[in-house]
C-alpha cells in the first residue's frame, strides 16, 4: 500500500525561500573547494614528485592521513579545532569551506600526481636541455599537459565533491539538502522533500557526468 504523495506545496516561493539559498551555498562550496583544492593539490603533487625528502614526506603524510579519515570526521575535527586555534568561534559555513578545500586537496593531489607522471620524462629532459629552469619546465611543458590529460578525472572528482558537500549536515551548515529538509519540516512533508532532493541531486550530478563524458571524447580526439 502507498500513502498519497503531495508535491503541491513546492511552489516558486518555497523554492526561493528555502532551497535556492542552500543551492547557492553548495555551489559556492564546490567551486571554492575545487579551485583551492586543485591549487593546493598541485603543489602537494609537485612536492611528492620533487625527490627532496623533506618535501616528499610532509606531502605524503598530508595526503595519506586525510585520505584515510572519513570526511564526516574531518568536518567535525576542523569545526572543533579551528575555533581553538584562532580563539573565537567560526560559522559552520566558513568552517565547511576551509575543511573541504584542505580535504579535497588530498584527492586532487593524487590525480595531479598521476597527470604529471603521464607526461613523458623525455619532455622534461628536452626542456632542461634547451636551458629551461625547473619552474619554466613545469609551467610551460608539464603542468599544461597534466591538466589537460586529467581534466575529465578532475571534473569527476568535482562531481563527487558536490555530492559530499551534503555532509556539512554534520555541523548544521545550510546547504542544498538542508534547504530541502527545512522546507520539509516547515510544511510537514519530509517524504516529498527528500524525494525531490534526490531527484535534484541526480539531475545535477548525472547532467555533469554526461558533460564530462562529452569532454572526454573531445580530448581524446585532440590527442
Amino acid at each position, binding site marked *: *500500500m*502507498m*500513502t498519497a*504523495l503531495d508535491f503541491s506545496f513546492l511552489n516558486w516561493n518555497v523554492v526561493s525561500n528555502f532551497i535556492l539559498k542552500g543551492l547557492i551555498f553548495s555551489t559556492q562550496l564546490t567551486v571554492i573547494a575545487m579551485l583551492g583544492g586543485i591549487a593546493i593539490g598541485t603543489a602537494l603533487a609537485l612536492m611528492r614528485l620533487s625527490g627532496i625528502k623533506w618535501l616528499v614526506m610532509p606531502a605524503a603524510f598530508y595526503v595519506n592521513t586525510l585520505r*584515510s*579519515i*572519513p*570526511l*564526516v*570526521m574531518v568536518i*567535525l*575535527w576542523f569545526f*572543533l*579545532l579551528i575555533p*581553538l586555534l584562532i580563539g573565537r568561534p567560526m560559522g559552520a559555513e566558513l568552517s565547511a569551506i576551509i575543511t573541504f578545500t584542505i580535504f579535497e586537496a588530498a584527492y586532487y593531489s593524487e590525480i595531479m600526481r598521476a597527470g604529471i607522471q603521464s607526461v613523458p620524462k623525455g619532455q622534461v629532459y628536452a626542456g632542461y636541455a634547451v636551458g629551461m629552469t625547473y619552474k619554466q619546465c613545469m609551467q610551460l611543458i608539464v603542468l599544461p599537459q597534466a591538466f589537460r590529460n586529467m581534466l575529465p578525472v578532475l571534473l569527476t572528482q568535482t562531481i563527487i565533491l558536490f*555530492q*559530499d558537500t*551534503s*555532509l556539512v*549536515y*554534520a555541523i548544521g551548515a545550510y546547504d542544498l*539538502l538542508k534547504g530541502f529538509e527545512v522546507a520539509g519540516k516547515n510544511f510537514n512533508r*519530509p*517524504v516529498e522533500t*527528500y*524525494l525531490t*532532493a*534526490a531527484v535534484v*541531486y*541526480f539531475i545535477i*550530478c*548525472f547532467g555533469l*557526468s554526461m558533460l564530462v563524458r562529452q569532454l572526454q571524447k573531445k580530448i581524446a580526439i585532440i590527442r
Partner: protein
Amino acid sequence: MGKWDWQVFLQDTGGGRTYLEWLMSAWGWTLSVAILSLIVALIVGSLMGILRTTPSKLLVAIGECWTELFRNIPLLVQIFLWYHVIPSIFLVLRGLPSIILVVFALGFFTSARISEQVKAGIQALPKGQRYAGLAMGLTLPQTYRYVLLPMAFRIVIPPLTSESMNIVKNSSVAFAVSIAELTMFAMQAQEETSRGIEVYLAVTGLYFISAFAINRVAMFIEHRVQVPGMIGGGK
C-alpha cells in the same frame, strides 16, 4: 588548549557504562554496518557489473540504469531516502530496524562503484576467452562461471580492496539516522564531556585500525587466490 585528559574514557556516561565501553560498542556498530553493507554491495555490484557485459541489450540497460541511479545521488540523501521515504511508501518496511535500512543504503550506493569495477575487470579479459568458452559448447552462464569470472575477480581485487576501505569510512554517514556508530559516539561524547580532542582522536584511531585491518584481510585473500604465472601471481 588545556592538558590531555584521557581519563574521560573511564567516566560514567550516566547510563551505567563508561565512555570506553560505549566507544567499543560504537566500534562494533561501525564494523557491523561496514561488513554487512560490503556483503550487499559485493553481491549486487557483481551482479550489475556482470549484467552490463552480457550480449542482451535489456540486461545491459538494467545494469547501466542501476549504476547511474545509485552513483549520482549523495550517500546521505540515499540514507534519508531509505530511512524516511521508502518505509512511508512501502508500508511493509515500516517495522525494519534502522540498521537494516542503512545497510541497504550504503550497500546499494557502493554496489554502483563495484559494478563499474567488475565490468572493467570482465572487459579487461581478451574477447577470445568468451568466444572460446561459447565455442566449446558452454552456455553463457557457464562461460561466466568457469571462464570469465574466475579471472575477472582476481583482476578487480585491488580496486575492491580500496572500495572495502571506503565502505568503513562511508559508514560514518550513518550518524545522520542515529545509528550508534563511531561518528555518532564522537558527536555525542564530545558534547557531553567537552573533551573533543581526546574523543575524536580515539574515534579517528579506530577508523584507521578498521581500514587497515580490512586492507590486511584483502591482501591475504589476494595472496591466497593468486594464479601462478598470471597477473601479479608471482610464485
